[in-house]
């Protein structure tokens, strides 16, 4: 054995940890101290944000999404009468792989650094429509709300997926 042979006292040396500062990050009060902004890495892939002016509704993101998580929703008519479609991300399917961000021709779809999104079930709902309720709550139309701290975006770098 390359390692020192077994001795009864070696495990007792870990008792010096008693006098070291614990590594725990006290979550609610203290955010991960590793990264400056909001504790999450500069290009973390979190919930989507979409600049609705720049987005032309070309459904490139829908085609590339490996898990069929993006649905195009019609939100109105433009002058020529064609429907304006915007992507709706179904977070019950999304795997946060950011292929859609790479493929977006107008760079409007980006991924923010927010990751907390949870749904509490409503007690009043019966079991059957509670299932639908949760599914709908997980379908979100990304907009500029989380736009301020953009994480993953290939705007400046070259397009990855072409």
């Amino acid at each position, binding site marked *: 054995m390359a390692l020192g042979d077994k001795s009864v006292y070696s495990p007792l040396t870990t008792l010096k940890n008693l006098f070291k500062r614990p590594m725990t990050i006290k979550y609610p009060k203290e955010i991960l101290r590793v990264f400056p902004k909001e504790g999450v890495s500069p290009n973390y892939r979190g919930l989507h944000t979409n600049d609705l002016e720049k987005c032309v509704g070309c459904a490139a993101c*829908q*085609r590339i*999404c490996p898990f*069929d*998580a*993006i*649905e*195009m929703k019609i939100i109105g008519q433009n002058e020529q009468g064609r429907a304006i479609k915007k992507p709706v991300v*179904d977070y019950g*399917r999304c795997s946060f792989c950011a292929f859609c961000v790479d493929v977006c021709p107008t760079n409007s779809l980006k991924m923010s650094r927010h990751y907390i999104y949870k749904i509490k079930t409503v007690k009043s709902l019966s079991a059957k429509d509670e299932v639908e309720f949760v599914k709908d709550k997980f379908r979100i139309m990304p907009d500029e709300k989380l736009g301020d701290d953009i994480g993953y975006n290939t705007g400046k770098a070259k397009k990855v997926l072409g």
Partner: protein
Amino acid sequence: MKLSKEEIIDLLKQRGLEVNDLYPTQISVIVNKENLINHLVYLKSIGFDHLSFINAVDFIDEGEFELVYHVWSYTNKVHVLNKVRIDRNDPKIPTIVDLWEQAQFYEQEVHEFFGIVFEGNKDLSPLFLENWLDIPPLRKDFDTREFSIRLFDAKPNGGDR
């Protein structure tokens, strides 16, 4: 006795097998069902002692299954893909459990997902799927999306395929 890849190709060609050289460390050999066993025994004798794994490919339009036996040799540093074609309607092939014992589980898995019967394999009971009544799932004519829509009422979101 370390054999280089070219020597192995010549050795196999002398045995009258069709060999093609894929990549610097990989060659593929077409073997027919009858002399599969003694082909593998021969390979094992010249140093191919690691059976990476056995898998099957379903060529539905040619109506054939292709079983690929991946064998690697630690001494010669060459990987051989032995490919065997069997008919799709009565897929039968002799087992190689007595050559390598782990083949038992690879064959069980291939049997469960393709329905290929390995003669001589004592226990071909299902390993992964429970209470499965449909056709073996990895066959090309099994549509998993349709299955998921019917059984778990999954709803596609319109991403075209």
